[in-house]
């Protein structure tokens, strides 16, 4: 029996997830600096986000509105009165020496998100309850210099880029989720997937795990079967892909069960997920309770959302992702299973956008869920992170339908687009990839193939047309797949008097 199966036989996992979402506002939360990703270091800072004396923050209206919309979409109650708080700590990722956050008065609380998980007894719903949704600001980015590992141990000093400091960050905290048993890793993954789709539907964030606009911390504890007291939990940080969410929980269940089996106790600590091994590594110990000395932020006035405003935001919420998926599956003629696969891949919007540009639903699904998902998983990224757009796919599909590309050539074009060689038309031109349907270009290859296969040629001349595949195959091989097979077949038959 695997370590995991044994762990699940003896212990009940209780999981919890803290998800940080960077909002896609134009400007930072409390100042007018741009939030654009990928800018030169320290080019998006000002006296307010650098915490210079005399500067005063003012809250970004869209930041507040987006947070309330997220809360509403997660079935939360919206606070009638909410305040920002200072979370005080000394670490150079915040130039102010505190982070503006929320403490005992979050904007949203007590919600839930339902997710579906495939179990041995079929698809089962799990409810993940939401403790709170609050608004804070992101921190700067540290690079540890010197040393060799890039981690802080062994580093001589750190370099800080404050472009990210002050970008609105929404923290979504679940309540502890018990009773998921062996499905704990899948429930966690389904939750983050569903949350990502919900946030994308709300259009409040890019939700790109690769770029860090959606980040996950995973809490996990094990309770011996039959016991009523939950075990000590660990918090695993740096879990930055959907697959990692699943792996981190699985590996933490295995690690904790082995420790408990040995009679050791689980230390309350922060652990770090390591992408390469799929395991967690011990980080900061939490034996000394963190003391952030929170207090209400005196430079920002409280938020008292108007009831009518909340009602309006609620009314204007987009269709829930699960309801939308059901509707689209019907529209696109996808089975439940096909739709769920597409959703897990994060491909619903990509397929919708591709269809909107004229591609048939079946083809759009074939390209994204069949062809591109392989590229994504090989590269260890999400579909949406691939350097190819629905426009590119719609174009490639149209070229295939017009007989200008074979499936094989289309795959080459896709690969080239993924390698940033240009858009499909540019790639086709540069690599000279169009289908050879010009008869004169095909004739030499056909003659060569006939000469190389005299037996087959003789049979065709006698009327045994079914062996034509041998010669067509040979032609396709010499032309490197760039010929239109139907056209070749026609020409071969014509040449052989059929």
């Amino acid at each position, binding site marked *: 029996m695997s370590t995991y199966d044994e762990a699940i036989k003896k212990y009940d996992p209780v999981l919890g997830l803290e998800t940080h979402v960077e909002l896609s506002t134009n400007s930072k939360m409390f100042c007018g600096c741009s939030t654009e990703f990928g800018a030169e270091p320290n080019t998006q800072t000002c006296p307010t986000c650098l915490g210079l004396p005399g500067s005063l923050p003012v809250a970004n209206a869209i930041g507040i509105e987006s947070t309330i919309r997220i809360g509403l979409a997660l079935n939360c109650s919206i606070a009638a009165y909410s305040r920002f708080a200072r979370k005080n700590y000394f670490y*150079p990722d915040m130039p102010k020496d505190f982070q503006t956050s929320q403490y005992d008065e979050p904007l949203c609380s007590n919600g839930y998100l339902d997710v579906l998980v495939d179990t041995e007894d079929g698809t089962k719903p799990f409810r993940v309850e939401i403790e709170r949704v609050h608004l804070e600001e992101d921190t700067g980015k540290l690079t540890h210099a010197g040393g060799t590992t890039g981690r802080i141990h062994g580093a001589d000093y750190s370099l800080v880029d404050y472009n990210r400091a002050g970008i609105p960050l929404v923290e979504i905290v679940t309540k502890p989720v018990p009773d998921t048993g062996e499905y704990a890793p899948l429930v966690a993954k389904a939750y983050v997937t569903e949350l990502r789709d919900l946030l994308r539907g709300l259009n409040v964030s890019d939700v790109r795990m690769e770029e860090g606009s959606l980040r996950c911390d995973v809490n996990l504890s094990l309770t011996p079967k039959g016991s009523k007291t939950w075990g000590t939990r660990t918090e695993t940080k740096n879990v930055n892909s959907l697959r990692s969410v699943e792996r981190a929980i699985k590996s933490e269940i295995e690690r904790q069960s082995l420790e408990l089996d040995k009679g050791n106790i689980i230390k309350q600590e922060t652990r770090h997920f390591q992408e390469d091994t799929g395991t967690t590594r011990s980080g900061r110990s939490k034996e000394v309770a963190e003391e952030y000395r929170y207090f209400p932020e005196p430079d920002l006035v409280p938020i008292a959302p108007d009831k009518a405003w909340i009602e309006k935001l609620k009314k204007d919420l987009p269709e829930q992702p699960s309801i939308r998926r059901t509707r689209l599956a019907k529209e696109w003629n996808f089975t439940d299973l096909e739709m769920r696969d597409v959703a897990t891949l994060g491909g619903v919007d990509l397929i919708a956008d591709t269809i909107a540009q004229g591609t048939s639903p079946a083809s759009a699904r074939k390209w994204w869920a069949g062809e591109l998902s392989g590229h994504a998983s090989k590269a260890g990224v999400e579909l949406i992170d691939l350097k190819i757009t629905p426009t590119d796919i719609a174009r490639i599909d149209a070229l295939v339908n017009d007989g200008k590309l074979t499936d094989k050539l289309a795959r080459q074009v896709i690969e080239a687009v993924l390698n940033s060689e240009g858009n499909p038309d540019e790639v086709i031109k540069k690599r000279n990839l169009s289908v050879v349907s010009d008869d004169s270009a095909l004739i030499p290859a056909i003659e060569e193939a006939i000469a190389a296969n005299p037996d087959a040629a003789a049979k065709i001349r006698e009327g045994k047309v079914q062996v034509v595949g041998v010669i067509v195959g040979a032609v396709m091989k010499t032309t490197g797949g760039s010929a239109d097979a139907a056209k070749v077949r026609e020409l071969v038959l014509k040449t052989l008097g059929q």
Partner: protein
Amino acid sequence: MSRITREEVANLARLARLDLAESELDEYAQQLEIILESVAKVGEVSTKDVKPMSHATGLVNIFREDITKESLKREEILRSAPASEDDRFRVPRILDEE
């Protein structure tokens, strides 16, 4: 009766990254004691009818539009930093945190 103990002063010093000598703990405990006593006087005022507040103006919902403004020039901000390298602020490493 002393409201603040040596241990509390030591913990505050740790949080504030202050390196206090043993002898200083008593000294600061006494000084903090005087400060706390002075602040405690505020508690003598009758505030039965006053709601707790964190802001003196009584205003709520003051927001700004989501519009970008020009940021500071990088040269300018790095010039004020004690040390910089590679267009970034250079800071001492901090142990045991990540």
